[in-house]
């Protein structure tokens, strides 16, 4: 998908004026925040588990190549194959090639954010394959031809009547969704329609929440069961995973699972947590005969090298989105690519380029809620600041902004000069404040809130008066 992150401001303005979206966002936010809070409150060990989870992932990243090789060997020992892809194009060619060799025609998909990242569906459709998303949210947005607006609730921006309209359009005459938008009716209709697609699937594509180096297992964390049907019924199972998904052992995966579900949906464990290890065994009565894992780099090895390594700890739980005041106001589509919210504002510039997504690191008040709820303790505000600095350094921001920042820097570095400007500023604001609290040229900003009215003196000047000689 082509990023539209450049037009973040216009996207955001549109989102703020969309009453349906605002209603959906408010509903989702309350649900997610409350469920996580209750789940965390019920587990006194949560904070110490976060620290353990962070340490596990940090250790893994420090030995990433060794663990990936161990994972590869273990997959092969279990009868599977591992493929390596430097970028989206390579990953899609591998997937197309596997499907073609398998003689597949119909492909069923479980939710995969890497799949969104590399845009695997259009790549397969261009080659003539029939691809259907089976996660209910993903299925809804596939019908709507939209990208996901949340990493764990892709259709969170759709209302039940939107869903009913999509279903009755695509499910043909006589579908119940034509006359009802009850969630139960819609769910049953989707279950019935997708059940036929499951049975006809030749190849199943899923993501992976973890790759376990010890055993070569891939871990699927879901609630609907669609990921399990996609990895059980077809002849071929293809797993898409970023190279950062590996963890050393089953014990390590288990600890991170404890913070994942609680942070994402407020569950202690999702309905289905599945460890898939290789292909069907000789005596097995079901399961795919072929098992492929496609490891995707897509900018991750670059992140490993520098100040953004911590971002590779991300387990895609969505907690930072749910707690972000900016995401809560504008929703996921405004961010213009597949990863929204604070994690997306870090990942998108690193994956599609800062020139394309320079607006995103600025779409944050740096309030720090994201870091405080992140189960992997990722310092998101620090990384957003680092990206702002980089954008300035690499001239992705306008000449006027850079000049202003340079001027500010020059003043802030010289205390005497700074005091002159600060006291002039304080006097000016005090004068404006006395004149009714409107700031000329600030647009609607001071229409709805009064300009602060400082006393007209700076802190330094006040201190000098009060402390006199005691202040050097």
């Amino acid at each position, binding site marked *: 998908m082509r990023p539209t992150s450049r037009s973040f401001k216009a996207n955001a303005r549109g989102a703020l004026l969309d009453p349906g979206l605002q209603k959906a966002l408010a509903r989702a936010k309350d649900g997610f925040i409350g469920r996580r809070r209750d789940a965390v409150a019920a587990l006194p060990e949560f904070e110490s588990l976060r620290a353990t989870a962070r340490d596990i992932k940090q250790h893994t990243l420090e030995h*990433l190549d060794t663990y990936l090789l161990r994972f590869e060997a273990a997959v092969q020992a279990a009868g599977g194959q591992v493929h390596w892809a430097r970028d989206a194009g390579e990953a899609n060619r591998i997937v197309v090639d596997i499907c073609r060799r398998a003689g597949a025609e119909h492909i069923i998909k479980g939710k995969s954010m890497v799949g969104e990242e590399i845009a695997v569906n259009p790549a397969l459709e261009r080659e003539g394959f029939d691809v259907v998303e089976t996660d209910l949210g993903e299925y809804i947005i596939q019908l709507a031809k939209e990208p996901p607006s949340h990493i764990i609730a892709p259709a969170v921006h759709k209302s039940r009547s939107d869903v009913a309209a999509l279903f009755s359009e695509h499910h043909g005459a006589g579908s119940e969704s034509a006359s009802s938008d009850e969630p139960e009716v819609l769910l049953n209709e989707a279950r019935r329609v997708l*059940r036929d697609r499951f049975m006809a699937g030749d190849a199943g594509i899923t993501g992976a929440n973890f790759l376990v180096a010890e055993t070569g297992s891939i871990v699927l964390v879901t*609630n609907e069961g669609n990921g399990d049907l996609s990895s059980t019924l077809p002849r071929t199972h293809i797993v898409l995973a970023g190279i950062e998904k590996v963890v050393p052992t089953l014990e390590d995966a288990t600890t991170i699972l404890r913070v994942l579900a609680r942070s994402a949906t407020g569950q202690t464990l999702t309905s289905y947590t599945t460890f898939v290890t290789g292909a069907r065994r000789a005596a097995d009565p079901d399961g795919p005969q072929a098992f492929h894992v496609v490891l995707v780099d897509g900018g991750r090895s670059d992140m490993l090298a520098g100040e953004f390594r911590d971002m590779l700890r991300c387990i895609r739980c969505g907690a930072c989105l749910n707690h972000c005041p900016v995401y809560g106001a504008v929703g996921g589509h405004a961010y213009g690519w597949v990863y929204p919210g604070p994690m997306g504002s870090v990942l998108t510039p690193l994956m599609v380029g800062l020139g394309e997504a320079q607006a995103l690191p600025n779409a944050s008040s740096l309030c720090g809620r994201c870091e405080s709820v992140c189960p992997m303790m990722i310092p998101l505000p620090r990384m957003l600041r680092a990206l702002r600095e980089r954008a300035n350094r690499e001239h992705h921001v306008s000449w006027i902004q850079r000049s202003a920042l340079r001027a500010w820097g020059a003043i802030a570095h010289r205390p005497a000069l700074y005091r002159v400007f600060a006291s002039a500023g304080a006097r000016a604001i005090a004068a404006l404040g006395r004149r009714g609290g409107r700031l000329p040229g600030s647009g609607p900003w001071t229409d709805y809130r009064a300009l602060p009215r400082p006393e007209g003196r700076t802190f330094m000047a006040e201190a000098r008066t009060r402390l006199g000689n005691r202040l050097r």
Partner: protein
Amino acid sequence: MSDARAAILERIARALGDGRDTAAPAARTDNPPRHPRPELGDGTLLGVFVERLRASGASAVSTSESAAGAAVAAYLREAGVPLGDVPAASDPYLTRLQWPDELVLANRAPGPTEPAAVTGAYAAVAETGTLVLASGATHRTALNFLPDHHVVVLDCSRIVGHMEEVWELWRRERGPLPRALNFVTGPSRTADIEQTIQLGAHGPRRLHVVLVLAAEAPAHTA
């Protein structure tokens, strides 16, 4: 794409630099670390398990080994499932139970609109109220996901405290992992339509557990 493999590994090695403890990963995978596990609180493993199983949206009934088959039949009858041909796992634990004549368990794949299936479980985890279902010669994975009602007959001596104990148990009893190890916690669910939690998205709409208590324990309805 061996080019890609070499290139990615090379980039990672360059990013990580020299001077790493190269023995650490093998030491860890050979001897997995013991991380802190949450306290389970008061009560027996069975008590904690049943409480959390119910909280996950599953139903449960406890019974003796001799009455387990009848308990399965009673649940299916109540649910309106025809008893003449119910797909089931063929593991020895299930097959040696006494089954009422009217309930015919079939060792076959479930169909796309299968009303019900009956399986055993490898183990269960008290911490989360979770059933552990392992694929293998006697257990088709599709039984866990296709039917509307999934009935699991659980030997309660297989309940452990935490997921880590399942790994310890499996390594000791079986060795390499099966193709699929499903940790199932309640019925299938979704909140994708207006954040309304609904059961029975793609997997079973109902999960029912028949808890088989040890022979000496008195049977009662849990």
